[in-house]
């Protein structure tokens, strides 16, 4: 690891001011579980680290006006165990409960995960289909970014260098839609997935009224399969329909080969796991 000055501001205001002052030479650390790996490999070499562990702000979880607000410094373990999240957005509580291990979730924060933006993380596919938004704060401004505009590339988001993620906003999950989050783990339970799929769906009188499908680990960012969602609207609830429609997934994913599968294999498995997730939320047996 390279040398750096370590700052432990006592408020979010102080943190964003430091970030602005060091203008590109600083990195923000919350749980540190991701940034420490980058530092150890010298993939990032900041002159300053601004640690948020003493910041008392951005640590609450609450529902106001039909929207779940999760502070950026809430840990992923706290999200998983929060009765408020479990009630307002059970899919989200489940997605966070599937991240790595308890020890990592104890440290890793919601804001840190959003800023890290590894496409193989668990929460992004769920955040996409729940139409979440991210609140970012700088020394001079605050803005909201719809999740669809957040992830831009591998480990890249549309956050600016002087901004910190201070809140995740999630509209309350519709209670009339079934949901699932499945992932294909060929190695170990705590590993990144070969492909992961979050889905929600509802049907009436044998027709699909709405489905939502998000995918992780199979492109430079998590993806939402809007083409598939639209194609299935009003379609008959049947295995044949889902099997045919899921083929469209092969066209939107862009996986890379790694020890979790070749690119071709991941593309094929994306189709299979999207279909399985749809079957699950629509109650279609094999």
């Amino acid at each position, binding site marked *: *690891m*390279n*040398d*750096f*000055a*370590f700052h*432990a501001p006592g408020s979010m205001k102080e943190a964003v001011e430091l970030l602005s002052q060091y203008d590109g030479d600083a990195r923000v*650390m919350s749980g*540190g*579980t991701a940034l*420490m*790996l980058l*530092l*150890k490999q010298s993939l990032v070499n900041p002159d300053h*680290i601004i*640690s948020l*562990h003493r910041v008392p702000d951005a640590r609450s979880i609450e529902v106001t006006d039909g929207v779940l607000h999760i502070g950026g410094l809430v840990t992923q373990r706290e999200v998983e165990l929060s009765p408020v999240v479990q009630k307002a957005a059970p899919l989200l509580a489940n997605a966070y409960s599937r991240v*790595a*291990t*308890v*020890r*990592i979730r*104890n*440290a890793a924060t919601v804001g840190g995960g959003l800023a890290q933006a590894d496409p193989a993380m668990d929460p992004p596919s769920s955040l996409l289909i729940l139409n979440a938004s991210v609140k970012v704060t700088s020394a001079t401004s605050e803005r909201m970014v719809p999740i669809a505009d957040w992830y831009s590339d591998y480990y890249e988001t549309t956050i600016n260098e002087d901004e910190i993620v201070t809140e995740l906003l999630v509209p309350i999950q519709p209670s009339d839609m079934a949901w699932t989050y499945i992932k294909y783990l060929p190695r*170990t*339970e*705590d590993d990144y997935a070969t492909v992961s799929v979050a889905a929600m769906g509802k049907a009436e009188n044998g027709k699909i009224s709405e489905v939502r499908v998000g995918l992780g680990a199979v492109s430079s960012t998590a993806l939402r399969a809007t083409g598939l969602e639209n194609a299935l609207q009003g379609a008959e609830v049947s295995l044949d329909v889902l099997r045919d429609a899921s083929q469209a997934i092969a066209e939107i994913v862009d996986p890379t080969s790694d020890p979790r599968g070749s690119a071709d294999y991941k593309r094929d498995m994306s189709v299979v796991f999207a279909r399985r997730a749809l079957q699950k939320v629509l109650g279609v047996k094999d």
Partner: protein
Amino acid sequence: MTSTPIKQAVRVTVNGTPYSAEVPTYRTLVDFLRYDLGLTGTKETCSVGVCGACTVMLDGKMVSSCLTLAVRVNDAEIQTIEGVANGDELHPVQQAFIDNGGFQCGACTPGQIMAAKALLEENSHPSEDEIKQFMMGNLCRCTGYYQIIDSIKAAAEQM
């Protein structure tokens, strides 16, 4: 790395004992415990937060000390494997690992015991599935997993 590293003061309570030191900002907590404080019970094996050997309690929460900076624990309370027993009296989790053959080579054992203790502190009678879920972040390359699960079940009976 520059020739004179940036150092910062750390005042921390480890296993009830206060310590203060000047450490390079890049020093990890596991290195601080082992090399600055001589507490070598905590092991480092994977260095990337996966294996669980370096598990310690930071302000009551189980964390990877290989992914935590020493300067981050300023003013905090740490518990390591050395602080688990009460004098000469072993903690029930430690005794259960001995009684049930919960270790072979022993490299993962301090982390396994710290994690098992953290599990039993939040769930006093976990099911086998709950034990497996919680403990999946602690790897045993001797693969003695069943004895570890037996040890945790036995400890739960004693606590």
